[in-house]
């Protein structure tokens, strides 16, 4: 059974992986799998599993250890990434079914909350943070 309702760290790791790829593509640099693994706090096996999930979903291509986005960042919605990385509850007990329905409701609520957010917006926020940090470092 999936653990806590709000501990979907896979989404956080997937977002990190996608931002690394999107940022590298924006500056015309290849993204090696090792870079994605090193940019995360997840175990290497977990990150490889997340990359596989993104490949299976047709979001990322992985050839010769280099990952690329198959879609433009502006067409990649965060709720889509959240749904892809949210595991389903296993088991057929009464409680497993009750918990599955609760998970469905919380997943739908988060997906709705992320409704209009896409990867491009997250990338722009990231670049803004980088600019601010650079300015602060130069001025300070």
């Amino acid at each position, binding site marked *: *059974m*999936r*653990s*806590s*309702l*709000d*501990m*979907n*760290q896979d*989404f*956080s790791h997937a*977002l*990190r992986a996608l*931002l*690394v790829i999107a*940022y590298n593509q924006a500056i015309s640099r290849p993204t090696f799998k090792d*870079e994605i693994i*090193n*940019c995360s*706090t997840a175990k290497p096996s977990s990150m490889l599993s997340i990359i596989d999930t993104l490949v299976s979903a047709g979001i990322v291509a992985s050839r010769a250890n280099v990952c690329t986005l198959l879609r433009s960042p502006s067409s990649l919605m*965060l709720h889509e990434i959240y749904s892809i990385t949210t595991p389903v509850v296993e088991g057929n007990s*009464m*409680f497993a*079914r*009750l*918990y599955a*329905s*609760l998970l469905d*409701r*919380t997943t739908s*609520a*988060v997906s*709705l*909350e*992320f409704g209009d*957010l896409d990867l491009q917006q*997250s990338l722009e*926020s*990231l670049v803004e*943070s*980088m600019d601010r*940090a650079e300015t602060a470092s130069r001025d300070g």
Partner: protein
Amino acid sequence: MGDTRFPTALQIVVTVAVNEAAGIRTTSPMLAAALDTNPSFVRKLVSTLTKAGILSSSDGASGGIRLARGPESIQLLELHNAILPDQRSWSTRETIPSICAVTRNIGAISGQLSERADAAIAKVLSGVSVADCLKQITELEQSRPGSL
């Protein structure tokens, strides 16, 4: 392995509620056996839920674990906050090595998304009570093949 405290705590509370409705006494060993989990883990969660005013427990031959209040007055958000206080969805670890532009700057983005996700989840959990869970369990039981 992920954090199973919340689903286990919820299962404990729902089991106590179902047993109470059926007039059955609930004990920690019974819960540990029913949930197929470690008795000390169950005792810890029961202790936390008791301190939070969700469960009450008493010793003796007629003792056991009960709901401290009516099931309609216990919201799942209260239960969640008792078990996982101040937990953020995607807390950014301070120990992440700043090895690339993303790791150096992702904290702010994760923080904003986490706040929005937490608020959405809290809204759902505040709208569900233990009584709602009992009702759903009853409906699931009635819809089971072979039930009347």
